[in-house]
């Protein structure tokens, strides 16, 4: 019932990753895993991991955020995992593209817990242990 919630953070900047993880770890219900780039993240997921939510930075090296998103949405295994994109400003041009790929939730960095809660509510999820989405 009170199993910690698995959250995958895909973020290349160590500082941003540290700040994000600090904000989310304050709520002891979270179990965070971080990947530094899209390739690592896709490998991680292929290995069988099933996070409840993916926080995906849009600006990544090698494969950029949108490309990772496309890959996630292509594969049956991963396309149903809720994704929240992370961006430095709400005028990020890639946000529009992310929306077109089916992601309608974003957080403007720095990630803070209340922003996180709002973001996943947009996905139809509720925080307390991340209940199933309302139909």
């Amino acid at each position, binding site marked *: 019932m009170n199993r910690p919630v698995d959250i995958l953070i895909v973020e290349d*900047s160590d*500082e*941003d990753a540290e*700040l994000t993880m*600090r904000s989310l770890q304050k709520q002891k219900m979270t179990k965070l895993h971080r990947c530094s780039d899209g390739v690592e993240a896709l490998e991680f997921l292929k290995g069988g991991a099933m996070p409840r939510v993916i926080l995906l930075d849009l*600006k990544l090296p090698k494969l950029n955020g949108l490309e990772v998103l496309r890959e996630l949405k292509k594969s049956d295994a991963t396309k149903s995992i809720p994704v929240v994109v992370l961006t*430095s*400003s709400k*005028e*990020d*041009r890639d946000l529009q593209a992310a929306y077109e790929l089916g992601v309608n939730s974003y957080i403007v*960095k*720095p990630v803070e817990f209340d922003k996180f809660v709002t973001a996943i509510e947009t996905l139809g999820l509720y925080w307390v242990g991340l209940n199933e989405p309302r139909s």
Partner: protein
Amino acid sequence: MAPVARIEEALAYARSIVDLVQQPLAVLDRDLRLSHANPAFYDLFELDADVVGKRLAEMRSAFDIPGFVEALTSVIESSTPLRDYEVTRDFPSGTKTLVVQASALAAPREHADALLVAFDDVSERRETERALRQHEYLLAAITDTVITLDTQWRILSWNPAAEKFLGYTAEEAVGKRSEEVITIEQSIDRKALREKLTLGEVVSSQGKIKQKAGTWVDMESSTVPVRDADGKALGYVVIMHDFRATKELERQLREHTSDVEEANKELDSFTYSVSHDLRAPLRAIDGFSRILVEDFSGRMSKEEMRLLDVIRKNTQQMGQLIDDLLAFSRLGRKEMSVGPVDMKALCVDLVPEVLAGTEARSIDMRAKYLPPCIGDRALLRQVWLNLLANAVKYTRKREHAVISISGEEIGDELVYKVEDNGAGFDMQYIDKLFGVFQRLHKPAEFEGTGVGLALVQRIVRRHGGRVWAEGALGSGATFWFSLPKRSP
């Protein structure tokens, strides 16, 4: 026949001849009185036979010409004819130019010392000559090639510009058929051209023409069919314009526009990346300082906390600056999407955003009638946002803030006003008020980046309006902006 009878018969003949002649003729006696004149004379000067016996000047004051009487008298006395005496005078029927010839008549004894005066009304001819001369000056002055042709397409005239543009002199061209001198490739074929001309249309086309030297040059031409008053074709006028310069300018413009577009795209890209890249380290500075403040406050002195606070405040300031600069720079290059704007609704919409976080304060913000205008809604929203946010900010130290918003039509402008009772500003520095990065208050008193009002000014100016302000330190400030009533 008796000598007298013979004389009278001769006279009768003479008179008949004189009367039949088309040219106005008058016979004057020694005293320059009219003995006899032909119908042509009476017609020309609109006189009747009752003037017989009068002097010319008595018949028409126009004949009262200085020196004329002397000239005629000298003909009688010296028998030297007066030739080509040209004079222009005003007659009742209008101004006429006359050429007068006068000679002494060898006459039968009773008509000794008589004068035959012939008049030639050259008024029309002189008029045409003058028009032609003007016409020639005009043709010489025109920098475009003007060629006239007859209905058989033979060249009638060839102006100096034609000589220059095509290389053939007027001597070489006039009289020739147009094909001998004009070799053309144009957007309309000859058959279609001639058909249109027959219908009386002016035909314009673009193409190339071969100069005498053999070079092909770009030209634009118009061919006008010329008709007389009865609609009969008289010929054609062809006007050609050297198109090379225009084509060159067009090419330069296209290049320039594409350069500008390219530069804009690059600038856009640059500012976008820069702002994103600048934000990242700022996030880190602020985020990590915050960790210290939140998680380690227990272990830090008040002074250490204050120092951290300064770091955070400045970082946030920089973040705001980046946002403002990005907006400011983007504004210059974005196209405006103009339409009707309900200014009252726009303001009312903004109120919650502007008043967010001020629940603890006492703020009286009221908007009276605001006339609707024509402009870019998103940009005008920015204007109101900045002005209202400023009013809220600078009234922070007032126990009871009063902000009034109003608008009215003045002439062909719409003038909007935001008035507050806040900290005001020193009118001495009014020139700096709308400058970029210019602030009239210390950051410690009121935070700000100094870009807000510059943005307002830029937007309003793009709409074709103006901004101005009045303030008094300590008692408040009023900001106005005007927009033209019609579309910017």
